[in-house]
């Protein structure tokens, strides 16, 4: 059957899609918690204050994906960017080398899907990219905090994926 076309998430989702503790895949005191944060930029180098990001670790976990319960880990989180274009997730390190990140925004008629690699290791996807483009998929880490910016367009444009 032919697929249903995509349309933009638009500017007015803040009353609908965010939910309580959406950015917290693990509770505050989780011993292995890390923070993944960064900013979303447009082609003019301006922050994107109305993007919605979704993070997926590959396993649903026991904390609830939508209504956070007492469990330790959820594999899914959601975060709307703030006026500076910044997002933030509290998560754990994935079992593999990367996390999956999907971005929706006004002006994106389709979402974009990328990967956040916490370490620069040999990898089938990374190894197929030239060094400058490879670097767009590498988070920069300091202790328990990792930074990963998403550049939708232009210089340093993030590598987006089509499976």
């Amino acid at each position: 059957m032919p697929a249903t076309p995509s349309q933009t998430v638009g500017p007015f989702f803040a009353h609908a899609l965010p939910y309580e503790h959406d950015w917290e895949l693990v509770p505050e005191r989780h011993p292995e918690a890390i923070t993944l944060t960064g900013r979303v930029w447009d082609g003019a180098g301006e922050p994107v204050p109305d993007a919605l990001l979704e993070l997926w670790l590959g396993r649903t976990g026991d904390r609830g994906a939508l209504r956070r319960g007492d469990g330790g880990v959820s594999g899914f989180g959601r975060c709307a960017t703030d006026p500076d274009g910044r997002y933030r997730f509290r998560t754990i390190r994935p079992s593999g080398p990367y996390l999956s990140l999907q971005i929706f925004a006004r002006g994106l008629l389709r979402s974009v899907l990328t990967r956040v690699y916490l370490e620069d290791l040999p990898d089938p996807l990374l190894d197929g990219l030239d060094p400058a483009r490879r670097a767009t998929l590498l988070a920069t880490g300091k202790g328990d905090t990792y930074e990963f910016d998403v550049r939708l367009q232009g210089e340093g444009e993030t590598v987006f994926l089509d499976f």
Partner: protein
Amino acid sequence: MTHPPYLYPGYQSTVLRAPSRPPVAFKADPDAIELSSPVFGHDEVGSLDADLTRQHAGEPIGERIIVTGRILDDGGRPVRGTLVEVWQANSAGRYAHAGDQHPAPLDPNFTGAGRCLTDDEGRYRFVTIKPGAYPWRNHPNAWRPAHIHFSVFGTAFTQRLVTQMYFPGDPLMPFDPIMQSIPDEAARQRLVSSYAHDVTQPEWALGYTFDVVLGRTPMES
């Protein structure tokens, strides 16, 4: 071509946000995490979440409607237990969102957000009110046709779909660059719901049906 291109200058916001390079085609290994999707439990969705007319003390103003349909994969098989989220403007065309500057009244009895999980046939069902058209600043005299925003998960993160449902016969559709960004007329028509007299409930609400077909997962293709 089912989906719109990223860059569609008639929709101004795409100009600085559309990636300039095509997405990198990548053949995922079977362990790729993008081939799975979060699972949402029935205890995570409230029983009233799918009735947008009962989320406040009083009844919202507007034409009460039932919107129902199935979430299917490309083989026509139901996608069971998947999360469907909807959001919309009220009957006057105003969103319950701080950024909406349209000088139309807010409705204290309508937020315009709902969610549910599909049943074993892949079916969802919402009760809501028909949203109004609303103006935007994309070009002179720009108006969005009445629409309900849909967000659907599916069984793989690559199938994740956000789209908009329109209403049959809406005269604003040909003027709307967001809808017209979809290059293929047949594909555009797949976003138009159908009036369904068998869904309509006497003396209570008009019925519309809208099915969503998710793309292939990479392992199938």
